[in-house]
């Protein structure tokens, strides 16, 4: 690899984004990941970091409704886009249907993976409001939980899907 001078080129970029509906304008380092931006710059520490290889899923957030690994996604890439994190799920301090289903189905123990599972499950239920058990398992297979053995999580998602359909709205 050849020697190169970095000094001539700007290493940061001005971005405008919406995080959980709130407009944010910042100058971010090009090399900052979305996870670093959320946690270190904005104090939104609900999004966790672990494997940093897109394998474990604890950093899952939604960008323009797509699930992404915030550990391997540049903060500059949310410029002009909408970001949703676990902090945006509850409404006025009240857990949403999916969060409530996680609590009531004992779908968490230590809780480290939970934000990621909630965001992936949100993404699943938005594209498929009535998933089969198999479809839930398939969609969540990129998220790792070492406490629950997964079954309570799958049950929680199916439970939430039923509640949201019964309420007749797509619960955000």
């Amino acid at each position: 690899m050849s020697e190169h001078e970095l000094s001539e080129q700007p290493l940061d970029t001005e971005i405008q984004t919406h995080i959980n509906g709130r407009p944010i304008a910042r100058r971010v380092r090009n090399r900052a990941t979305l996870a670093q931006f959320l946690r270190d710059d904005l104090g939104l520490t609900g999004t966790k970091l672990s494997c940093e290889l897109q394998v474990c899923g604890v950093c899952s957030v939604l960008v323009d409704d797509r699930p992404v690994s915030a550990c391997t996604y540049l903060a500059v890439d949310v410029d002009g886009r909408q970001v949703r994190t676990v902090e945006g799920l509850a409404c006025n301090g009240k857990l949403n249907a999916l969060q409530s289903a996680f609590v009531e189905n004992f779908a968490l123990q230590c809780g480290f993976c939970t934000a990621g599972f909630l965001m992936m499950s949100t993404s699943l239920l938005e594209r498929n409001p009535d998933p089969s058990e198999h479809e839930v398992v398939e969609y969540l297979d990129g998220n790792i939980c070492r406490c629950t053995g997964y079954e309570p999580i799958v049950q929680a998602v199916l439970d939430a899907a039923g509640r949201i359909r019964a309420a007749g709205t797509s619960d955000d």
Partner: protein
Amino acid sequence: MLPPFGLARPRSVSAALAELDEDSVPYWGGTELLLAMRMGLIRPRQLVDLKGIAELTEVRIEDGELVLGAGLSHDEVARDPLVAEHAPLLAYAEALVGNARVRAQGTIGGNLCFAEPRSDVATVLSALSAEVRLVAADGTDGADGTDGADGTRERRLDMAAFLLGPYWTDRQPDELLVDVRIPLPVTAGVYLKYQTVERPTVGVAAVARGAAGCRLVVGAVGELPAGFDFEDVASVDAEAIAGELEPTPDLTGSILYKRHVTAVFIRRALAELAEKVSAP
């Protein structure tokens, strides 16, 4: 922590080509590139973000080929109606790549350019006899007779010519992979893989093209997808093919084990293909 880098955000292919060189590299989903940068394997001066170029996410039928823009995410390919109609095998395989986040971020073109030897996409595209189109800014004014659009030169390569080895393709630093082209029609196709970790141990793709015979490709086991052409499914000797391969021994199995699993999956894939071809 990623190393520092500059960022270009071109809005057209020609603007992107003007930015590309050895140290200024194409960037889209980052699912492979950012990991390689974090590990210190590559340290570009600049990333050329291609996400602002609309034509790189088009899907169309052109001259008897299904043309897929290189910037389509795995999920977009998996859910595209034209892909579902003309190359359902690719839609099926794309829906199985990585996990839902990788499928939402990673692109078909990026996957090919990274040349991960266990890529589902490369195996299936090899079986579909797909070609990639590479475009570069033309300094020579078409003197080599390979003129593309204004001010560009282009070439088309099949998978065997494009993929040179693990993490190694024939793409030159000034070239951009703009689209993937699948010749139509495809009679029937099958993809079967065995996977216990993030990437498959073996992936077998088989494609029938009516009187043109069938093509079998074994991926993930060796350093490159291995292709075999046959007049009909019945003439394939699964053990002989598995015996010819050079499996890479790793945590998912020894050479002996991988040969065995490969033969099993070739047999299953061909049985399924024969069933699909004979179905009314």
